């Protein structure tokens, strides 16, 4: 049916600087994925890289999604919004500010407040993996000139 195993991703740059702290799980996962996909290297600073990924904003929000018949929250939406852009050596934008929004649903019960707290951590980690894949897709089609 036309499906083929994904081949090496040819990024249109040889090296990239990821503007996230060393201990950032998101940064760790993103760097590993970029490195695994071919010749692209991760630069230690923005000056020595062809392009730099700049994080413009990372926000987490929790909003009530549904109520039970007594008007109490029974489901929440966890929202994860990430905004970034990519600039080249001269500071020119090769990817204009781009937002990626992710969402997961979590059920809620007042007697399980502590358990739900650690469940949220799991869902944010899942969104992080999803986010890394979506960032990779955006980087792969950058227009460099």
């Amino acid at each position, binding site marked *: 049916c036309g499906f083929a195993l994904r081949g090496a991703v040819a990024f249109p740059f040889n090296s990239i600087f990821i503007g996230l702290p060393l201990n950032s799980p998101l940064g760790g996962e993103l760097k590993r994925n970029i490195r695994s996909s071919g010749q692209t290297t991760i630069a230690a600073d923005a000056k020595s890289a062809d392009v730099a990924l700049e994080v413009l904003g990372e926000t987490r929000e929790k909003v009530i999604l549904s109520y039970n018949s007594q*008007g109490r929250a029974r489901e929440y939406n966890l929202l994860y919004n990430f905004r970034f852009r990519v600039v080249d050596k001269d500071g020119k934008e090769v990817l204009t500010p781009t937002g990626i929004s992710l969402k997961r649903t979590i059920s809620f019960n007042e007697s399980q407040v502590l358990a739900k707290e650690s469940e949220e951590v799991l869902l944010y980690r899942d969104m992080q993996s999803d986010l890394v894949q979506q960032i990779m897709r955006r980087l792969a089609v950058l227009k460099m000139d």
Partner: protein
Amino acid sequence: QVQSVAIAGKPSTKADDKNATTVIQAEQISGRPERYIQFDEKVELVKGTTTMVADHAIYRNLEDELDAKGDVRAVRNGDCYNGDEMRLRLDTNAGFVINPSYKLLRNNGQGKGERIEFQDEERSTVFKGTYSTCEGFDPDWYLKADTLKLDTGIDRGVAGTSVVYFKHVPILAVPSFLAMSFPLSDARHSGVLPPSLGSSSTGGMELGLPYYFNIAPNRDLTVFPKYIQKRGLQVGLDGRYLGVGYAGETNFEFLPDDKQTGTNRYALASTHAQTLLPKLALSWNINHASDDAYPADFATNINKTAVRVLPRDLTFAYTDTYWNAILLSSKYQVLQDIAAPIVPPYDRLPQLTVHGGQFDVLGFDWAVDTILTRFSHPTLVRGDRAVIIPQVSMPFLQPGYFVTPKLSLHATNYHLDNPVAGQDANSQRTLPTFSLDSGLIFERKANWFGSQMTQTLEPRLFYVNTPYRDQSQLPNFDSATADFNFAQMFSENRFTGHDRIGDANQLTAALVSRFIEDSGEERVKLAIGQRIYFNQQKVSLGGSVSQSRSDLLLSAAGKISDTLSAEASLQMSQSDNEAVRSNYGLRWSPAPRKVLNAEYRFQRDTVTPNNQVKQIDVSMQWPLANRWYMVGRSNFSLQTNKLIEGLAGFEYKQDCWSFRVLAQRFVTATSTSTTGISMQLELNGLAKLGSNTIDVLKKGISGYQPIN
């Protein structure tokens, strides 16, 4: 015959307006050199960005001052001033206009007065004048004040003693000590908030008159006195601050001597975050209400009454490159509903978490988490718990596939203060877990409703093995069975928290397919997954023990077209072939401020039927006719055949003001609900901040956009 005179500005290295050369043209020029010059007929002045025309003008050399008379029209920095008479000092740009009318460039602010005095290029004061953002001689609304200080440099106007008129009817009087300020640009700073008038079943007539104080660019205070007919005068304070290394917001509401209960009613919500040292941060989140009924009696929307467990946290966090430590002290206030009591959560007094870890060390990721907690509770088993979890994994990644083996150990030690009969005061549990995650990624070019896209096909297999330990005698401080979803499927433990570690010999299989646009944007995601158990599960938290297969998960979500998006998910039990959780939703937004949402949500709960969710949620914002918009939401429970939250209203938009009326009904507790109606007039440029009503609409109607 036009003649012209040039008057040089003071010598200066800066080429700014103040020192620019002034050129004055007129048909007749006369006077005494070195004393004055008289200009008559079609006088035109140009000095930098300042221009002026008048019938007559006289320039006095000594004072460096120009007096203009007769149909004076001046433009300074794009702002226009017309009047009978004008004086301007050419060196300082100070001066005045008699009987002026004015129009500011930035936000169309305009008005007239008896006199305008220019302090300098940017600052001026209007005496006994008016201000409005409406066009024309007969504005729909205007502010009349004894003094109006306009500063186009910081884009702010400040009114002295003033009265706001709407359709020539005085609607708001502001004494001078409140120094009402308003923005002179689109920037959302300073300004009075629109007053609100309403009525509710719990409070009777309600009138709110909020005031907004812009104390400093990074600090503000909103005071919102509200008269509630059946209860008394409530005063609310909301302060926000932001600085280098700290930020916070505190909201406090107080109503002394409630007419109905005879008690003081209050609520507090405060958040704060601060960097104490480069690596050390402090934060708090403190919430308190005077009594259990507070949200039901005073809430203006369902989001306030839906939360009955209020956290009080204080956190210190130390962050280094490869490790961090968090010291947390956490308590809760539970607002009980007698008809449906809540078991209060455990307090953590305190909890110390130390995390160390590194990514990609010779291909390995490692992490060690240590958590020490003192759990306290008024009625349940109390005690100390120590948990240490070392783990190591080796992700092997290629563009087309990945394999991640992972090994972890969960070591737990309990010391209980008041064990129940049969429970040991001291107990330990050590459990290893092995997991293997793997996946393939296939791709092809595909067609999605006429547009070319990349379609992926991503099969994934996840195996977990954790041996069984009897944990039935261990306390349960923070564990619960996790929701079964696509994230939980690929985690090792079916419980969250650290008191229960599920025995596992299981394989999860899932298939994901995505449609990705050429820009890299994900358009649609489809997924299916299930878990297969090779052993009967023994560790349980009271729920039913699963059979050989888990529930089946199906989900589809994405944008069908630019205006239509859809979402569907289903969790299907394999023992009775019935839905455990499901939702189906659609959003259609064919234009800005035109949105229609419809969703069905279901969540089964056979143990506590009160917690079951079965509802239809429909909401919209829709233009009805020119300038008229309709807003509405209906969140209806199919289980009790009751409206959980209903909103219905209209919004009317004029160029310089808007009006909205909103009726609301929402459930506040078992068998109680609130019904109310509120009205609000928003004057553009005077009140630029979002109001309570807009918050209700934004939260209730997904995709709602304010009309002005």
